């Protein structure tokens, strides 16, 4: 088992004829992801990497039975592409673009929640259930099928920590890139909830950063629900000054909220293992799982 995506996920690539879209379609197929269709308005009837291209999402759904989507269109067109996928009932929908206007995200997320559709991102590397399905742009070679569920707000740091888990022999069940924007589809709590019921996931790694209070809320959730699996957390940005955006649109300490300390403090209270260095996530979880 895995969460959100697995071997049965039939993928649509929106924006498949673009540079990013075609490049990653090749990598997704190489990985073994079932990419069954692509869309690009006006280019219906063509093929990219052996994948048929449609003008509309509807056609792709009707003719190829796709059930999930990865969206490679530029930020200013992401809202439209996402709405088209939401209305067609695809889920999850992965929004790769960085810099989607926050009002667009607000509208996308409200529509998705009305329709019961899961949005991953925007500004995310995507999601991967190693060996089963990659629906994202992550470098596949650092991931390996295993027992740790990963939820992260940051792309390359996910690769870093996943590589550590792989090296430690733990591997990953599913890694979800929540996204680095202020508004994103999935929260740590949503993913923790999914991992709770996933038998294969024996432990969870949370990778947070400064800004917002998603980590604090996750800590509260862990306490409140007496979370049954060991959790380790790494929070980036202890050295970040207030008021400056650190790369991600969402990574900013504003006023008295969003500091790394407050997040770490909250996790500590919840009994979460705190990793001071990225490599400690693997060692702490290994210890918690009692493996040699």
């Amino acid at each position, binding site marked *: 088992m895995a969460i959100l995506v697995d071997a049965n996920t039939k993928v649509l690539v929106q924006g498949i004829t673009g540079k990013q879209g075609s490049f990653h379609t090749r990598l997704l197929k190489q990985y073994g992801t079932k990419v069954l269709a692509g869309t690009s308005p006006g280019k219906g009837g063509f093929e990219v990497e052996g994948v048929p291209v449609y003008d509309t999402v509807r056609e792709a759904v009707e003719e190829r039975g796709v059930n999930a989507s990865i969206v490679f269109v530029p930020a200013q067109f992401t809202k439209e592409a996402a709405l088209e996928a939401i209305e067609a009932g695809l889920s999850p929908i992965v929004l790769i673009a960085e810099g989607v206007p926050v*009002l667009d995200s607000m509208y996308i997320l409200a529509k998705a929640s009305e329709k019961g559709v899961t949005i991953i991102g925007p500004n995310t590397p995507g999601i991967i259930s190693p060996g089963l399905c990659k629906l994202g742009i992550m470098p596949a070679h650092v991931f390996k099928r295993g027992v740790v569920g990963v939820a992260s707000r940051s792309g390359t740091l996910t690769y870093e920590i996943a590589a550590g888990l792989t090296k430690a022999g733990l591997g990953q069940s599913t890694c979800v890139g929540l996204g680095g924007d202020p508004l994103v589809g999935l929260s740590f709590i949503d993913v923790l909830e999914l991992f709770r019921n996933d038998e294969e996931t024996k432990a969870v790694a949370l990778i947070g950063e400064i800004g917002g209070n998603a980590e604090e809320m996750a800590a509260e959730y862990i306490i409140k629900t007496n979370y049954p699996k060991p959790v380790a957390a790494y929070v980036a940005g202890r050295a*970040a000054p207030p008021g400056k955006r650190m790369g991600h649109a*969402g990574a900013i300490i504003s006023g008295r909220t969003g500091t790394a300390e407050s997040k770490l403090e909250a996790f500590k209270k919840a009994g979460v293992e705190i990793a001071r*260095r990225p490599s400690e996530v693997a060692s702490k979880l290994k210890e918690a799982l009692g493996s040699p």
Partner: protein
Amino acid sequence: MKLFEYEAKDIAERFGIPRPKGIVVETPEEARRAFESIGRPVVLKSQVLVAGRGKAGGIKFAESAEEAYRMAEALLGSEIKGERVSRLLVEERIKVKRELYVGFVINRASKRYSYLASTEGGVDIEEVAERSPEKIVKGDVDPLKGLQEYEARYIARRIGYRGRQLLELGAIIKRLYDIAVSYDGELIESNPLVETEEGTFVAADMKLIIDDNSLYRHKEYEARAKMAGPEMTALEARAKASGLAYVDLDGYVGIVGNGAGLTMATLDLVKEYGGEPANFCDMGGTATIERMIEAVEIVLSNPRTKVLLMNVLGGIIRCDEVAKAIVKVKEKMGFTKPMVIRLVGTNEEEGKRILSEAGIDSFDSMEEAAMKAVELARGA
């Protein structure tokens, strides 16, 4: 991007929100004429983007045209919290009965606009929230429905208004929401929104922050957003022009990484090992070679940088290309500052060979690299 007060008020006026009569001036003489045209006691407000300009002496009152001239002379060209004053907003002084707060802000948890309204305006709303939370009315707006007139009136009712005032205040609240949506506002607030002695409402101050990612929809501000902000250092401005996420810090270990999270984690490690980062420089998760060269150059040209620490986890970018680029920068700049590189990922063996031939240290683990960089910086 934060707009100047007068810009936000111009927008408010177009949306039908009452504002004090006001004129933007750039010289003392213009301030004198503005006083005469307004014909009443005025307030001169420095148009700067920093918070707390009142406390910092950026707001003055004038009873006569001569006084307006003198005050303007003192304010124009002065600096408020490091920002130079080049314009003043000269406004009629409003007779205040009560100061309110009304604002909309994007709420990350509920993924909606939250409204805040209070009869305790004129001060920091966070202070009010701590001191007397019962004085704040708040809630969320459904983005699919938008804020309805009746909801806006209900907010006015909940902070205590009835009759004609409820209708007027409700209309202002609704218009503020309309501005937020029309201008991709991350935050819009009127603080204070003044209830005058006559019982009407006037936006005595207005703040509007536009989401930077939406600026392509707001062409009138787009060009300005690309310019260096007053708070930016020269290197930050250069990096911004090259599309790098760069922040200057006070330390001495120069840091370049690919991806915001990884770069932040690198900073944290440097601190963990007793060093101080000179900067944060994120090339982006899918960095190109050109961008990388620019990043290294910027960080090395920071005079505080004693050692360069570069952390690259090559996913899509290939390590051999990264290595070649690093060698190229070193040759070009003729630099003597030590470089510590952490390089793993696609084609990493080839990348490491290229680096070692050029006499540059490279590591597999970011922890080891950070430790080495701190050690070198301390010896330097």
